[in-house]
């Protein structure tokens, strides 16, 4: 009986050690994956920086296109910006978030999702030569961008923040 108890205790220890061994790396990884806000901002800014520059290049001349009523040409610039934006959001979504900022960042990513949708819809309206709907969507795009910025104001983003000036 005692031998059996010892055996069972021993099995218990082994199980515990095995379980711990299995969990340890996961626990260590999860600790490593939860960055501080400063680390998170640095990482995101490094991802947003090249895309912000690419957006400026893609949108160059869009303002002039609109003024000259070349909506199809402007649409292609918006399409390129839209694709860059979608890529950026996908990339930064994958970055582990500081646990204390989870709620705030979830809200922010909600706004970014809306921004992505606005860009796609503006592109579609411009392609369809619908000036007024494109104008209305642009108003919402700018307003939504400002709301997004306010949500993460304390993060001090530069390249990852919405800037009207990037869009032509």
């Amino acid at each position, binding site marked *: 009986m005692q031998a059996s108890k010892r055996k069972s205790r021993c099995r218990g220890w082994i199980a515990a050690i095995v379980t711990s061994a299995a969990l340890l790396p996961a626990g260590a990884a999860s600790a490593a994956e939860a960055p501080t806000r400063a680390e998170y901002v640095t990482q995101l800014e490094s991802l947003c920086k090249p895309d912000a520059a690419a957006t400026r290049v893609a949108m160059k001349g869009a303002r002039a296109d609109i*003024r000259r009523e070349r909506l199809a040409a402007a649409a292609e610039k918006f399409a390129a910006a839209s694709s860059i934006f979608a890529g950026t959001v996908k990339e930064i979504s994958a970055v582990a978030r500081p646990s204390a900022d989870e709620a705030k960042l979830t809200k922010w990513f909600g706004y970014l999702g809306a921004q992505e949708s606005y860009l796609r819809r503006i592109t579609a309206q411009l392609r369809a030569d619908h000036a007024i709907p494109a*104008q*209305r*969507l642009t*108003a919402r795009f700018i307003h939504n961008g*400002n709301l997004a910025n306010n949500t993460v104001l304390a993060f001090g983003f530069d390249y990852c923040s919405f800037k009207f000036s990037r869009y032509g």
Partner: protein
Amino acid sequence: MLPGGLRGRALAALAALALLGGLGAGAANGERTQHGELIVALDGGLSPLKLPRDRPAPVSMHLEGGLKTADGGLLPQVTAIELELPGQGVLSTQGLPTCSPRQLRDTTSAKARETCGEALVGSGTLEADVLLLNQNPFKIQADLLAFNGRVRGRRAVILHASAAKPPIVVVVPLLIEHRSGSFETALVGELSPTLGPWPHFAHFEMTLSRRYAYRGRERSYLSASCPIPRRFTAGFFSFAKATFSLADGREVSTTIARGCRAR
């Protein structure tokens, strides 16, 4: 456009270059950016919003903004201010009297209006944190007046801030510079350390507007248009950018976009 200078040339100020868009976006509470603990805010707009598509019309411009700290800490010392304005408008000083900083030194608001009223182009308020040795910081509110002027041969907006309690008068010339890019006009002013408590300023609001007659014609200090195609009813443009240089070497700024409607 300047008296005897860049006459007739459209200078940058406001006006509406359009991307696309309606109005209302972003105009509610102004835009803010945060740099460390420091929050920079800027708001403003043109009045009227409805403007001709093809020619500048008289407008007034309201700007307000400032600095605050997220943790309620002391405001840093500001050493220079830069207000950038878009390049599709007109800032006209032709035939408008000028006033020199010297004329405004040590004058109350009433006296400044009396001395340089003909050159008045705007007014507002200024709020600053006063930091005195062995005393708790306190806020001070001043009346702000803006005059058309010339400094070292260059066009300028001369700011005159006057507080009653404690009695302080500060005169800061903002030189008008021309640049390329979205913002073609910049008002640039340096704040001397000898200004004492004023560089720790927290908030300003100012409306620039002046109608005057010159050679029998009605003129406006500021004019703007809403140059959008016929198929659009409204447009957006980069309206203003405020940059504050701080004593610790940092530069903090924020930019706002605003809209116009075509009439």
